[in-house]
């Protein structure tokens, strides 16, 4: 499977009172698996304030600012599911795919994720996933072929 997606960073029954708390939980997952320094979380919050990372289909992709790249230790994803939903500036978010990326080239990664979400069945499976294996099956093919 993709090294990008550590099963320890797949957390499917999270709760968060609001968007910022959801982002902090995403950031904490990236920090706990050793992908980012704790300071990265603040850059994720700053990024979200500057522009929403909501992409559609109930999914947001929180990630740090360009300045936060130096706080990334290795490229990684974290998938956090909030079954009760989180209000995201008026949108309802069920799944966060949080991104730690040190390089410039996470364009392929986002493109691969977008392809999954453009498939209505796969997007629904991701929103309804209760098993780590389901997430790995859906997103595990997202490879880090984006060195730059």
């Amino acid at each position, binding site marked *: 499977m993709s090294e990008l997606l550590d099963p320890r960073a797949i957390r499917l029954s999270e709760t968060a009172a609001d968007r910022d708390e959801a982002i902090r939980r995403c950031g904490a997952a990236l920090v706990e698996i050793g992908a980012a320094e704790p300071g990265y979380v*603040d*850059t994720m919050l*700053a*990024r979200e*304030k*500057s*522009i*929403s*990372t*909501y*992409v*559609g*289909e109930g999914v947001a*992709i929180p*990630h*740090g*600012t*360009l*300045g*936060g790249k130096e706080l990334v230790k290795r490229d990684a994803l974290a998938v956090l599911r909030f079954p009760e939903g989180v209000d995201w500036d008026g949108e309802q978010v069920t799944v966060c795919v949080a991104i730690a990326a040190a390089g*410039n*080239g*996470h*364009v*392929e990664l*986002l*493109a691969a*994720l*977008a*392809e999954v*979400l*453009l498939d209505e069945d796969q997007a629904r499976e991701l929103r309804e996933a209760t098993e780590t294996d389901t997430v790995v099956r859906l997103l595990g093919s997202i490879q880090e072929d984006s060195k730059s």
Partner: protein
Amino acid sequence: MPTRTVAVGSSSGLHARPAKLFVEAAAAAPVKVTIRVGDKKAVPAKSMLSVLALGAKKGTEVTLEADGDGADEALDGLAALLARDLDAEEPSDA
């Protein structure tokens, strides 16, 4: 039909933030705009997922297309936005 072909100017490509700015501008346009890479399928420019799925990097040539009243003006604005380095315009709040 009016079209514009432009190379993506953002240093890290049409990823999350530049894509979002483009999609918001496309959604605000008075006409329906599509975007495509090369001969691939044209997708709605106001769909974030469709735009992300293009996987356009810096220098990738994308083609915008629209029809109707105001199409030329809308395309000029969107093409200019794509040509800019939107990454360089990020507030340095980190």
